[in-house]
């Protein structure tokens, strides 16, 4: 069975769309998580008026809106691919799961508040408190998604969890998994912010610290997570197919790390290398993550795979991407020219 087409062409197309849109979601949520965290720490240290903080503060509300919009697409495909697992996990977590939406609303308005002229006049600590609240909300949301994902993969606990009326699912893998996402977010966010501040050597130096610390953390959390994988989940990862994808993750991460080490000397070329490395690592990592679930699941039913509308989707997918590019290009031409 070879991913993604081992369960048939249409399932393969769903999987590709899932992985690609999830990767986009990951880039944006990384920016949100790290940006809010950065503002919290910088504010606590009383130094949140540097270019990096200003950039994060300025772009965070948009990044959150974009992260949410980007999340809608994998949300759709996960329901096509793993419907019953996903719904069951949602239902078991119940109110606990529904808390994600209010947390995001609070987080958004905290970001927005931090950006207002009124907040600019506050003492830095108060801004730090607001940013911490936002960061806390987003970590809660990230934790909820990992919890839901793990629970969906554990049908053996469903009935007992239901009977006990528990709305929280805890297991050993959750901590390293969440840590992995948080650590990986650092180089990703640093790279995006790096492009925004590519001309600012001091800013790049500070971002480099974040990026490299994140890479070290990701290595540790990744190793910890691998060590905890139960045998049935480990098998697809250790099979040839899994090893190939894992090797791509490692290669991408090495490139990204090299890029950041090199950043002070040739910022743009180094950022290009880091970006390419991270794109490969995120996509390949998303595939490794998926191999486990894919091997434990059945193909999408033929009736579902036969649902019409794909050509129209592809038309609008490409068409709207072109329109978006043209609109933004057109606007930028007037701003710079």
């Amino acid at each position: 069975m070879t991913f993604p087409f081992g369960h048939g062409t249409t399932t393969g197309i769903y999987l590709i769309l899932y992985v690609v849109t999830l990767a986009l979601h990951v880039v944006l949520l990384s920016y949100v998580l790290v940006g809010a965290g950065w503002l919290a720490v910088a504010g606590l240290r009383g130094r949140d008026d540097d270019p990096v903080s200003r950039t994060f503060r300025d772009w965070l509300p948009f990044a959150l809106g974009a992260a949410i919009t980007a999340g809608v697409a994998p949300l759709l495909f996960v329901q096509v691919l793993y419907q019953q697992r996903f719904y069951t996990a949602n239902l078991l977590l119940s109110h606990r799961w529904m808390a994600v939406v209010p947390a995001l609303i609070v987080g958004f308005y905290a970001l927005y508040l931090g950006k207002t002229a009124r907040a600019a006049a506050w003492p830095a600590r108060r801004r730090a408190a607001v940013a911490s609240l936002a960061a806390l909300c987003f970590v809660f949301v990230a934790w909820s998604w990992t919890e839901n994902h793990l629970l969906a993969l554990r049908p053996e606990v469903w009935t007992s969890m239901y009977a006990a009326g528990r709305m929280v699912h805890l297991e050993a893998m959750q901590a390293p998994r969440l840590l992995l996402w948080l650590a990986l977010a650092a180089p990703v966010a640093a790279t995006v912010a790096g492009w925004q501040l590519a001309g600012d050597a001091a800013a790049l130096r500070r971002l480099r610290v974040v990026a490299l610390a994140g890479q070290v953390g990701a290595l540790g959390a990744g190793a910890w997570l691998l060590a905890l994988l139960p045998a049935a989940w480990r098998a697809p990862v250790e099979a040839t197919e899994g090893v190939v994808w894992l090797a791509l993750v490692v290669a991408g991460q090495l490139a990204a790390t090299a890029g950041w080490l090199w950043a002070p000397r040739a910022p743009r070329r180094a950022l290009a290398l880091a970006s390419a490395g991270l794109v490969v690592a995120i996509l390949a990592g998303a595939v490794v993550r998926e191999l486990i679930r894919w091997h434990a699941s059945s193909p999408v039913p033929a009736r579902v795979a036969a649902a019409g509308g794909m050509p129209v989707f592809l038309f609008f997918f490409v068409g709207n991407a072109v329109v978006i590019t043209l609109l933004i290009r057109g606007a930028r031409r007037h701003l710079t020219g």
Partner: protein
Amino acid sequence: MILGSLAAALPFYPVNDFGPAMKGMVIGGLGIFHVFLAQFAIGGGLLLCYFQWLGQTGREPHARRFLDGYFKILVLISFVIGALTGVGMWFTTIQVSARTIGVMVDEFHWIWAIEWTFFCLEVAAGYTFLRWGDRLPDRIRLRLLIAYAFAAWMSLFWINGILAWQLTPGGWLDGGGVWAGFFNPSFWPSLLYRTVVAMALAALAAAIVINTMGDLAREDKRRLIVRAAHFLAPMALMAPLGLWYLAVIPADSRSWLLGGSIAMTMFVGIAAGASLLIGGYAAVGLLMQRLYINGATATLLLALAFGATGAGEFVREGARKPFTVRGYLYSNSLTPDEVATLRRTGSVVDDPYPLRDAARYPTAQLQTGAKVYRLQCSVCHTMHGANALTDLAGTWTDAQLRMNIAELQHTKPFMPPFAGDAAEVEAIAQLIRWETAGAPRRWPDTTGDAATLRQIAAWLDEAGTAPGGAPRPAPAAPAAPEAP
């Protein structure tokens, strides 16, 4: 790996208890909020295009000032709360009826994926305008606003097809596929109706915003308000569009709305009355006499519009009963096919989820009753709260209970047929008695009462498995229309 319910014939999901509230109320509350905001965003986009055009053609000197203020509000409220309540709707629908949303995803995922590409366009165009709009020439501003408004309206276009399909699946039921389901009989009337509502909401919100623009002279405000009020004019179409909608929905749904169900008729009345008030005010006050509309009045009218939206959503949800997908899936997540099968096998034998409060019940029969209630009734009823079974049937005799439950779809045609065997009817009848009696410690078990079970089986046969609107008795189970 024990795949639990993944292996069962029906998809069994863990059912949560929402206390005294009916599940429909949970989704209804959020749904009204979301629909209101989303429609405001759609109408707002169109209104912004209009004002940009008024400004850049020199027709209205203050258009631009209004536009920039209005846009910030639109973004702040609708981008975020609109998008998040949308995600919230999705999550809530899963909580209330996972299988319904599952069927919708199975059939319409590509439509939703198309809608998503328009979300992306909406965010990109809107944010570009928000960020750089004040430094861009009019031509580019108008282009961005048109893209924004078009994308917002297209998201309505796509979702409207799916929602309308739930009540009028049209040719989809005969194997016509996604597009037959999408362009279903109520597609156009509901799309146009919602567009008119969206424009009206945008106009009322604009009147509020214009009133808060403190430094404008009253005459300037009046002029802006009259301009915005042009967006109330399409309300004249609401009555014909509403009639068109009524004409295409199934006859039994129509009869609920027009007197068959008191609650539903009342909500139709509220929606129509509130719309009439708003439209009447607009027609008399604004379009004909060009009066001023102050902030308080505008707020009041917007509140009325919120009420109308709420009532309208309630009607839309309620009119589908006993289905969530007309002719294909009942409100309790069972298909007509399955009802016929479960009559023979019983409905809860395969349910892998235990009762959370099993120890509460003195007999195994009552436990079965509780599982049947959870599976088949709890989506519309509670035991002691809203639409409580103990209130509705607590005073009935045993025989009345048994017969009315066995013939559920004829007891009230907006209930689905009972989907279990005679023993399950008896179990839930006993459960209702026991709950009404205050849940005593001891309770007789009637499982072995063969004569009673025979009588119930006869009632079940007499009722048939066709929905209540159909002629009775139905000789055999109707085949559920197979999804394409």
